[in-house]
């Protein structure tokens, strides 16, 4: 007998159970992905409007200077790494962490500090200490509120303005499509005029330009808009990261389900062969037993 029928049956049961689990996780991620996509979409108008207002202002007289633009040489570089709280999302976390590690290795020793959002990143840097972790947020749990992201932004901005950090960079998963997300690093602070202007350009058609009245003053509006712009940016980055996470998990779970199906097919084939073989063998034994009695 080629294979043990009992062993094969047990394996089929195990794989079928695993398939049920991965299928369920795929469905859960799909629904979470939908929710995250909606959040990303409904967050856009606010962000766009903030950018539009900012672009009205950039040309206005007496506007442009702000401590948020300050280029400094003293201080450390704060690297914000956003990961998921949970695994089972394929290479999602690993890719983010390797992108972060790559950047950290470029920085002079002792110059970097880490700000971690997500359990996976926190666990990783506890096991592989690279530099000081100034904060690890592990209780987001997929809940994103404007208040929470504003708190995070204010902490980052505060650290920058106090001179503790000369720049702030964010590593996160840029959401391209349901099947594709890309680990991306952006320079969050200091702001610089060129990249800000580049980001704001294109949103507004020339004809809609008008002479705006700014209350209380262009300067005062500008000084308030910049932090609002940064808060909005962090919110969108977090929303993108969540969306990428769920899409990565959905894809990897759907792959796992497919693998289970393939395995089941193969195992079922082998089980049937083994069963056939054992029946044939039994019949042979009976027949030859009967022959011998003659």
């Amino acid at each position: 007998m080629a294979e043990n029928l009992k062993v094969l049956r047990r394996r089929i049961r195990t794989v079928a159970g695993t398939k049920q689990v991965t299928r369920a996780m795929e469905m859960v991620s799909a629904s979470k992905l939908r929710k995250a996509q909606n959040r990303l979409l409904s967050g856009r108008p606010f962000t766009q409007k903030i950018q539009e207002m900012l672009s009205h202002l950039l040309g206005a007289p007496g506007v442009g200077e702000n401590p948020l633009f300050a280029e400094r040489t003293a201080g450390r570089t704060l690297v914000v790494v956003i990961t998921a709280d949970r695994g089972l999302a394929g290479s999602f976390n690993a890719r983010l962490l390797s992108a972060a590690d790559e950047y950290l290795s470029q920085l002079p020793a002792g110059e970097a500090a880490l700000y971690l959002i997500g359990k996976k990143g926190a666990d990783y840097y506890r096991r592989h200490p690279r530099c000081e972790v100034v904060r690890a947020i592990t209780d987001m749990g997929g809940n994103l509120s404007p208040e929470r992201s504003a708190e995070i932004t204010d902490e980052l901005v505060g650290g920058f303005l106090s001179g503790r950090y000369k720049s702030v960079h964010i590593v996160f998963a840029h959401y391209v499509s349901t099947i594709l997300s890309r680990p991306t690093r952006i320079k969050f602070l200091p702001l610089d005029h060129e990249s800000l202007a580049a980001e704001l350009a294109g949103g507004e058609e020339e004809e809609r330009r008008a002479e705006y009245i700014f209350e209380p003053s262009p300067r005062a509006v500008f000084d308030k808009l910049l932090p609002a712009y940064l808060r909005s940016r962090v919110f969108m980055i977090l929303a993108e990261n969540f969306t990428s996470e769920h899409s990565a998990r959905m894809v990897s779970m759907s792959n796992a389900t497919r693998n289970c199906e393939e395995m089941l097919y193969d195992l079922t084939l082998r089980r049937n062969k083994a069963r056939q073989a054992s029946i044939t063998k039994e019949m042979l034994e009976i027949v030859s037993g009967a022959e011998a009695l003659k």
Partner: protein
Amino acid sequence: MSDFALEIYTQDRLVWKGRVESMVVPGGDGYLGVLAHHAPLVTTLGKGTLTVMGEEGELRIPLEGGFLEVAHNRATLLADRILAAEARIEDK
């Protein structure tokens, strides 16, 4: 009475959208009124109650912080925080 379009957003959602005849906004330096065909304006918002008058009645929304932009007979209000979960709509 002529009206204008108003959209109210917070970072995570569209709060309200519709045509209104006038609105009173808690600006950074005190309340200000906006009617149709207002000159292009960008203002910061303070803490207070936004009052919107339209055909269906009056809408009051307490909010804190944010910005208002008015241009081309469209107003967009971005609120940092809406203070009451439910905005009351009263009939005239």
